């Protein structure tokens, strides 16, 4: 076990505990900048929803509730797998950690594939706010401009998360990165933030105007 700690320890820290604290503090600062990026888009959504309540309600009815809800479920479950993987890696439970990380990759890919099918359906239903846009209500174009921007930016973040988790899983599986490395917790924090962003997007993009 002490060999594992020595392998995970990096300059300039003299203990793995300090290294873990620094890594987590650093990633929380990064998550803060990510939160402000998405908050800017959420603010644009909130302002335009206030200005065009009817158009936003009519647009909310046009997004696909089944794709949206199933994908929320997929992402919440991926966060469960990520939390288990991160804690298991820290506890040195190799088999559980690698299985959980593989589940994260599988669920993340599932989310992106479903999102792809949903985007294709949106395009068939002429919900791209360009020429031939189907909805006439004022504000509907703004809603769908934000819908495409926010879901695409979120998907990009998820793809980045998949690359990081895939890379760490590969290293963990090959044994080139010790399971005690704080990188697993750092990747988990990022993954959970991407999940939280989706948790906030879900009621705004999918649940509006349903009642």
């Amino acid at each position, binding site marked *: 076990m002490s060999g594992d700690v020595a392998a995970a320890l990096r300059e300039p820290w003299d203990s793995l505990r300090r290294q873990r604290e620094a890594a987590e503090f650093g990633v929380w600062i990064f998550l803060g900048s990510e939160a402000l990026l998405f908050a800017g888009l959420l603010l644009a959504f909130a302002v335009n929803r206030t200005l065009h309540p009817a158009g936003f309600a009519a647009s909310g009815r046009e997004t696909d509730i089944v794709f949206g809800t199933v994908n929320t479920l997929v992402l919440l479950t991926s966060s*469960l797998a990520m939390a*288990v993987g991160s804690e298991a890696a820290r506890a*040195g439970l190799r088999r559980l950690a690698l299985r959980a990380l593989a589940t994260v990759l599988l669920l993340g890919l599932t989310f992106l594939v479903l999102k792809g099918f949903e985007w294709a359906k949106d395009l068939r239903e002429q919900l791209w706010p360009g020429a031939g846009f189907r909805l006439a209500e004022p504000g509907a174009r703004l809603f769908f401009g934000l819908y495409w921007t926010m879901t695409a930016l979120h998907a990009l973040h998820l793809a980045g998360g998949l690359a990081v988790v895939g890379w760490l899983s590969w290293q963990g599986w090959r044994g080139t990165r010790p399971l005690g490395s704080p990188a697993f917790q750092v990747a988990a924090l990022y993954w959970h933030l991407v999940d939280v962003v989706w948790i906030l997007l879900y009621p705004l993009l999918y649940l509006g105007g349903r009642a």
Partner: protein
Amino acid sequence: MSGGEARAILRRGLLTWAGLLLLLLATLALAYVPMGWLNLPVGLAIAAAKALLVALVFMDLRRRDLLLRLAAGASLLWIGFLFLLTFADLLSRP
């Protein structure tokens, strides 16, 4: 390296996940109940509850040191200013 530790990790995760699932079902069902202007606040409140569960349990904020809570809280503070100042302008226009 015990099976007990693995079970404890799984149990805590699954309990949180079950809570998230219940909140998701609740927000989906309530979205179809006509409550007028209340529909959006209810949906957002449930989303906030889900985000809080993820932050406290999965992101470990419940037992982390003050520094990390401060870093997480600082972004919420600035986002609060962003919304407060924007809406102070928007809603007070003649």
